């Protein structure tokens, strides 16, 4: 179960109190009625599904009730940061994903490392 920092309550709370809200920083067009099919498709249907850092919305639904944004590593499920709705998307390009920081020097032998990725 994830541990999530609510930027409004200013504390870490259990995932039980939150609801996921999909990708963050997708602005709803102000001229909604006039956008093209392609623009609507990009706005509503298409998402990146990245391996690594993702910016996403969460709602502290069983807490303060507020929506906020968070940056999470989709591989390790570690949260890099969370921030209030409306704040600009932070630049985390320099941040190392949490999974790349081994606590020891030993290198793991995984199925993927030895067999290659599934085809």
């Amino acid at each position, binding site marked *: 179960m994830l541990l999530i920092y609510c930027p409004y309550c200013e504390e870490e709370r259990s995932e039980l109190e939150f609801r996921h809200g999909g990708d963050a920083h997708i602005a709803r067009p102000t001229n*909604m009625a006039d956008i093209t099919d392609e623009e609507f498709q990009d706005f509503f249907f298409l998402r990146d599904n990245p391996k690594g850092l993702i910016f996403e919305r969460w709602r502290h639904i069983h807490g303060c009730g507020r929506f906020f944004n968070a940056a999470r590593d989709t591989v390790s499920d570690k949260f890099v940061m969370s921030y209030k*709705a409306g704040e600009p998307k932070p630049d985390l390009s320099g941040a190392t994903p949490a*999974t790349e920081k081994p606590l020891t020097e030993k*290198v793991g*032998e995984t199925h993927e490392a*030895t067999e290659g990725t599934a085809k």
Partner: protein
Amino acid sequence: MSGANRIAGQGRLTPAKTARFTFDGKTYQALEGDTVASALLANGVHLVGRSFKYHRPRGILSAGPEEPNALIDVSRDVARRQPNVRAPVQEVFDGMKVESQNRWPSLSFDIGGVNNLLSPFFAAGFYYKTFMWPKAAWEKVYEPFIRKAAGLGVAPTEEDPDHYANRYDHCDVLVAGAGVAGLAAALAAAEAGARVILVDEQPEVGGALHYDMSVTIDGQSGYEWAQATAAKLKAMENVTVLTRTTAFGYYNHNFVGLVERVTDHLAKPDKKLPRERLWQVRAKRVILATGSIERHMVFANNDRPGIMLASAARTYLNHFGVAVGRKVGVYTASDSAYEAAFDLKRAGVTIAAIVDNREKPGDAVLTEARRLGIEVLTGHSVVDTKGKLRVSSISVARNGGGSARAIPVDALLMSAGWTPSVHLFSQSRGKVAYDAASGRFLPGTYAQDCLSVGSCNGTDGLQATIEESLAAGELMARATGNEGGAKVELRGENAFEWTGGMAGAGEGAGVDTTVKAFVDFQNDVCAKDIRLAVREGMHSIEHIKRFTTNGMATDQGKLSNIHGLAIASEVLNREIPKIGLTTFRAPYTPVTFGALISHSRGELFDPARKTPMHAWEEAHGAVFEDVGNWKRAWYYPRSGETMHDAVNRECRTVRNAAGLFDASTLGKIEVVGPDAAEFLNLMYTNAWDTLKPGRCRYGIMLREDGFVYDDGVVGRLAEDRFHVTTTTGGAPRVMNHMEDYLQTEFPHLKVWLTSTTEQWAVIAVQGPKAREILAPLVEGIDMANEAFPHMSVREGKICGVPTRLFRMSFTGEAGFEVNVPADYGQAVWEAIWARAEPLGACAYGTETMHVLRAEKGYIIVGQDTDGTVTPHDASLSWAVSKKKTDFVGIRGLKRPDLVKEGRKQLVGLLTKDPNVVLEEGAQIVADPNQPKPMTMLGHVTSSYWSENCGRSIAMALVAGGQARLGQTLYVPMPDRTIAVEVSDMVFVDKEGGRLNG
């Protein structure tokens, strides 16, 4: 004497404290602190179970949770019975009943043992081939056969009378395992001031110190040091020590699941105590000190009762005072097994021989063996065993061939070395690394804030383990902000350092042999089965595992994984790390459902929501239906009435006189603020700025994709205040949907949303006599038809309490919905009922509500729509504003597929035979004689017998439905085809005059 094999002066149990239990009906005496395994061994019982596939006689293999053979059924009484308990971890209590499993008619004579003779037919993967044809035999023959043979113990039939508890906890450092490593780590962390939780699955701390008598720590015997350290830790305010507690699952963000067995060892548990307690711990740091598990040797017939792990024999001797045999052989590839022989020899047991498959064992153990006069056969192997229900002799041969020599034994101890328990580390998503020098998988790259210490980290040597653990404890305490305490130092000494270990099949069980050399005891997987899997094309360890079922039993391959890998590696001619390791999954050992669900059972499984009028409805004979979590009055049968009779009567009564309906479950949201109308303009398709205070409007809410999401009547109470209603099931998601847009897309709007669903009780009074019923009870509202027209709302009083009175209808009759504060709901209902009943009105339930609304063609979102229906499809175009430049869904509605001709549209259906009521969900076709698969035009969404129409009515989603009015279509059913005519959806009062009456 509690068992002939108990040796006086050995072990830590008190001879005076006895307990009696039965095994397969026979009574045995045990000592307090015995496990079922130690008590049976004390009484000379080795045969305790039958294997899963071949029904071979099996004994006790281990002294821990890795036990694959000795699975038993334990009961206190009929209801308190648990199958598949591992005998070495179940403590004996007085009066306990133990049964063996997987045998019939008896353990010593088991008919299923014929499977052992038929084993050529049960080769690995046989079930993937054997049950393939004929197809028809599957249901009648194969499936019943497999179901009967499958599973181990028998599930209890009665409801579990025990209760289970659930607790959350937080700590700086969680230490899993309380052997030397775990105790040292916990001590160092605790002394530094950290909040520590230390858990161990055994009744007492100590781990390997239970059996390793040669260890001293700071001059104390290892076991005594462990108990003293635990006592010291327990006395510290910042430490929780949990024994009989298994850390079974390591989840995200250092969330660890523990299960504490509270009463399973007690003869007469306090009824107030839970049987088990689930701990959900969030630890800032985790230290894994889970130790290692000894592996067995893989050789022919290595599964007879009496053959067990060397460390297990040491535990039974040194902790329980039980000799596992009188003439004991040892077969090993590791120095560790020598110490078992030494301990037994010193206790007076004859050691027949130590058979070591290595040419060069460790010098120290070899010297000691010679000193004790034990025969050591180096470079030899045990190639076979004899003995029907218990091992009676072993065949020993020089490696590489030569004649075998039979040595009589009544027990054989074995060790192929030690497998570090990296289960929790692996569950934490850490990546293991293969250490070729020691042939072990060890923690490699960490994914979470944890450290492994001691033998689960591959650390050999007592002092090295102590120092590593102390350092880890202090490091983790410092990392969580604890600065206090003096540095802890401990000095440990022991007799021997161990060398050796092997993985894979031993002599006589190699390639080209067909002997039964068991790798996985619980699933009866032999070395030859793994080779067969490779020959049949399984080259990935994941495929081999599934084809052979190696490691798939309830012990999850704690003993078999490494052997399986090594055998596959040999046949595939690839190094072990190139084959990969299968993933370790939670739970580490089986966890009861009771512990996991805790109090969430029976009435607490899913809380029921009841309306303020529930008690009245119950008293008046209502039958209830579940709508979400709500209990809603479904219909009110009078004596002798069927559901059909009751609904017909209720339907007639509402249209002829009036009816009372509990509508309290409808979702209600108070939308307040200067921008409330603008906000609703964005949330609903309709225009709200044009709605005058005191008026209501039916609104449709879409998702951004243009499909109907919810609907409901919204009343405007003031310029800045709206009373929004939603569907019963949609209330929470509509609230979330509105909050989402308000907080994230339209934060500039000054609007506040409050869920008021449970604040208002709602009494619908519907029918031609509705006004007559209500008028005398209402104060401050002009009830005249012209002053209070259809679709308006007034505030005033009813029966002296405040009300929001809506003039609205979901029946097509003139009607009102009386909103009063929930606490007054039942009183106001009773007052209205007192007026209504003499006027010939009735109370009606949700079934009648459904029929009446269908008679008028009013849709129910979620029944007549399914997430792919637009307002235009549902003939609700009139409710979509053409003037607004924005609302949620405005763009989605213009998508090419949503404006295309031929979409499924909501229409009415009238069966040609008026007495036939269609089935909801039935498919509709144009030509019933077309070849299958038929082209389906749509399906029936709502269908009822309408008493008021004197015939059946239905609504349906039909492709191009509006253009098919008057057409005949067909509904093919299994027994007949029903002809229907497409109609509009209003079946009663097409002009709508009754609404305004």
